[in-house]
């Protein structure tokens, strides 16, 4: 197997606060291969966005990467000096944020912003960069790009602006795109277009995509594999059909049960009781145990580690064939 | 920037739980917590308190009444501070041209400055709250008129307005005013210069409350809406008003001092800190620095302390801004 584009190993992210250190990400590991789309799903606060931000090196103080390693095509990037990391951002990793309305500087023409980014990373003349910018705008589906390039962000609709943001993210041919809730702020009718655009771009350029969202429907439609996050950990990760059709982790089961299907009207939508714990009050053992219908003694004292289960991997004691001695 | 609406933080408290004493609650509050955490605020509060006490007890602390010409002796004029070679007891900070003890003059001047400042703030606050309530409650043309005046006035510096009002009052009442009416004119000038911020804050709050259901409900059961609204609007705006008032106290004192320094404020027979600085400024070149330096220092320390308190209050009542 070839080397994955992105390899995250045992990532830990901490935030220092007045009430002590909070661990937002606790031992997350995953890979993304070339051309693959990994969906990262979970409730808000599960650590999806923080994972994306740590990969691109934009965790702001008081947050910091406290442990683990991040490799981009073999290069370790979690401990790069700021200036070298800056060169990686935009050039080798592109990022798309949630809100296209606020992602663009309102005072600059979109062309200026694209040309600025291109020329930061590629050795191109002003004219060449501008031609490339027009091509990019055409590629992301902006009509009449040679005219629209001189428009200001407020002259574009939300969906068009997100296309501009995507053009900005791919303008230096990155190996990896991190899309953080790219459709949440958009109209439902536009969401599908943006999703298929991201998918197409990933396929055409062989780019790896990390798609962060809370929308399981989007993931089912787009992703090759999916990682389900809960309270700063990956509960389950695996090929998207497997996880959707046959979720293993009780939380993933609940999550899949929460997707309405057209055919499956025979079952009621399942609801997971309770809510995700706050970072300051993560329970001992498995963080899901207070909400879990299958929890047993071990879940309350010992944290489950990921276990391979076919193509899937699940962090749940239910699947541990050799129960360890009770710690108590 | 300065007229940003400051959100008031309402302390949450369970219904009908045993209420601790007033003092205990005050000591438990977030406000007191942030106060204890900021050493500079505590120092500022102590200095402000000291100034108030000194002003209140000026007649006990002073060695002479600087407003009483009979107590001033020309042979004592222009004595240097006590610790210098030419110092003479009991003139701790030296004397001025007329033999006035600088220390005593500062105490009495401080009293004048604080009285004018506080009265000015009270007057402008009352005026502003009243106009704000009127504008917010009636809306329409009344609101338009009041707020237009406010807009225009806000674009002119308060000192210019105060100077103009001062000049008009002088010409209306005759050029020579006695000390007490001058004090009144200053309060009037300051009050009329600083009402806008209060009016805007109160008006905004009234506008919000006006459309709430309880007002309609109150009207439905025959309660007078203005009374009901007042009881909701005033507590809601108390925090912001307190912040504005504190910062405006510093501004009012500066304005009074400036007017007096320009010769349009308190006369030399009843000097405020600003008047003292104006008098002292004339002797700067003769090397008699103490006549201006100490009143100047007192004024600066007073304003700085009040400003620090105001800044802290603003931050403490509005955690969002920090």
């Amino acid at each position: 197997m070839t080397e994955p584009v992105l390899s995250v190993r045992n990532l830990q992210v901490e935030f220092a606060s007045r009430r002590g250190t909070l661990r937002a990400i606790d031992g997350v590991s995953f890979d993304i291969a070339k051309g693959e789309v990994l969906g990262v799903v979970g409730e808000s606060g599960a650590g999806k966005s923080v994972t994306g931000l740590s990969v691109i090196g934009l965790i702001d103080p008081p947050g910091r990467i406290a442990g683990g390693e991040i490799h981009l095509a073999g290069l370790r990037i979690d401990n790069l000096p700021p200036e070298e990391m800056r060169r990686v951002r935009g050039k080798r990793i592109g990022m798309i944020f949630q809100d296209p309305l606020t992602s663009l500087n309102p005072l600059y023409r979109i062309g200026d912003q694209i040309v600025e980014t291109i020329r930061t990373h590629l050795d191109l003349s002003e004219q060449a960069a501008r031609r490339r910018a027009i091509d990019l705008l055409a590629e992301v589906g902006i009509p009449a790009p040679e005219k629209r390039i001189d428009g200001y962000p407020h002259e574009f609709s939300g969906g068009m602006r997100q296309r501009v943001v995507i053009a900005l993210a791919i303008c230096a041919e990155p190996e990896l795109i991190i899309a953080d809730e790219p459709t949440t702020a958009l109209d439902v009718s536009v969401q599908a277009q943006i999703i298929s655009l991201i998918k197409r771009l990933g396929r055409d350029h062989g780019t790896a995509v990390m798609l962060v969202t809370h929308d399981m429907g989007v993931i089912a439609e787009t992703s090759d594999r999916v990682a389900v996050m809960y309270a700063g950990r990956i509960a389950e990760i695996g090929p998207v059909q497997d996880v959707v059709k046959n979720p293993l982790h009780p939380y993933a089961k609940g999550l899949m049960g929460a997707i309405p299907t057209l055919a499956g009207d025979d079952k009621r939508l399942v609801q997971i009781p309770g809510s995700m714990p706050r970072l300051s009050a993560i329970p001992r053992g498995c963080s899901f145990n207070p909400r879990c219908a299958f929890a047993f003694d071990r879940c309350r004292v010992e944290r489950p580690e990921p276990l391979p289960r076919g193509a899937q991997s699940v962090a749940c004691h239910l699947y541990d064939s050799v129960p360890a001695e009770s710690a108590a | 920037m300065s007229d940003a609406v400051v959100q008031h933080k309402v302390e949450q408290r369970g219904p009908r739980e045993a209420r601790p004493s007033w003092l205990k609650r005050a000591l438990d509050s977030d406000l007191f917590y942030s106060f204890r955490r900021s050493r500079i605020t505590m120092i500022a509060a102590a200095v402000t308190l000291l100034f108030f006490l000194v002003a209140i007890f000026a007649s006990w602390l002073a060695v002479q009444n600087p407003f009483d010409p009979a107590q001033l002796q020309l042979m004592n004029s222009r004595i240097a501070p006590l610790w210098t070679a030419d110092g003479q007891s009991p003139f701790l900070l030296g004397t001025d041209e007329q033999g006035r003890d600088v220390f005593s003059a500062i105490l009495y001047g401080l009293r004048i400055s604080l009285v004018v400042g506080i009265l000015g703030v009270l007057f402008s606050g009352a005026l502003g709250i009243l106009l704000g309530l009127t504008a917010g409650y009636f809306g329409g043309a009344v609101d338009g008129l009041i707020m237009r005046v406010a807009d225009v006035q806000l674009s002119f510096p308060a000192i210019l307005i105060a100077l103009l009002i001062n000049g008009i009052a002088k010409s209306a009442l005759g050029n020579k005013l006695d000390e007490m009416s001058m004090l009144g004119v200053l309060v009037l000038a300051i009050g009329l210069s600083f009402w806008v911020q209060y009016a805007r804050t109160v008006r905004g709050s009234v506008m919000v409350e006006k459309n709430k259901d309880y007002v309609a409900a109150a009207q439905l059961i025959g309660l007078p809406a203005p009374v009901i609204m007042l009881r909701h609007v005033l507590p809601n705006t108390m925090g912001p008003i307190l912040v504005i008032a504190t910062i405006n106290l510093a501004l009012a004192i500066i304005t009074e001092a400036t007017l007096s320094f320009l010769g349009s404020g308190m006369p030399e027979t009843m000097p405020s800190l600003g008047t003292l600085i104006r008098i002292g400024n004339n002797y700067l070149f003769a090397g008699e620095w103490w006549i201006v330096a100490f009143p100047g220092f007192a004024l600066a320390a007073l304003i700085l302390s009040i400003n620090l308190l105001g800044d802290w209050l603003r931050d403490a009542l509005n955690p969002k801004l920090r």
Partner: protein
Amino acid sequence: MLAFTLRRAIQAIGVMIAVGIIAFSMFRFAGDPVNQMVSLDTSGAERAAIRQSLGLDDPVIVQFGRYVGNAAQFKFGISYQFRLPVTDLLMERMPATLELAICATIFAMVCGILMGVYSALRRDTWLAHAFQAISLIGISLPTFLIGILLIYLFSVTLGWLPSFGRGEVVHIGWWTTGLLTLSGLKALIMPSITLGLFQMTLIMRLVRAEMLEVMRTDYIRFARARGLTTRAIHFGHALRNTLVPVITVAGLQFGSVIAFAIITETVFQWPGMGLLFVQAVQNVDIPIMAAYLMMVSLIFVTINLVVDILYTIVDPRLRSTVSRAH
């Protein structure tokens, strides 16, 4: 865009009319102008003659019309103190005030923006803390105290700079300038700093707050995610977005600078309009007070108008919403 400008211009004229009414009422009702002009032993007949000649017996509305008509031609009557046309007195002193105000504004803008940017970007350095302390002192120290302090330091103690006046001035037409002689420039230093210090702290605080606000926005985060250099993010994106509100405030503040010059001019005996105004207030010279009020209001209103138009040029969002609205 044109309609917007026109609407603002009409508003400006409205303000000027309001100020005109105030100035006229001062002139007409605050004390009897005749009493101000004559000595105690002037006979009743002479007083009546003067009343007649001033048109004080005409209906108020006629007098107001005449006042506004004259004011529009910059005729503000005769000063009680100097027995000279107020317009001449003001025009003679205007260059001094404008030069001072412009120098003070430049000083305030340059230092304020530099200090603000620095203290926003290097938030926890000792220099940033020092700037914060300076800003607090700048806001707390009354202008006249700063002036006195500077005079004591640089004139009395060190003897480097003159403590009063404009130094040698050069006449260029009716304009007089102190910018072309060494003594004129030296005389400008302390008054400019005194006058500009308050604005400087204001601009610094504003730049710092705005910059911190902008640095938190999504488009700065996205600019970082695009891998732009720190320099491009700070100065290309953050500073430019910060400067939009700063230009507005600084522009609007120019009017206040002219008004605040009253204090600075008194401290430094600077022969400008402010000093004239202070003397007028002390001597109840209503024509000068009224004329000064009108002049300063005119400057204010003009600046407001210019800033509004400038704003639409700097901020493209405003430009198009404004033109789209009509």
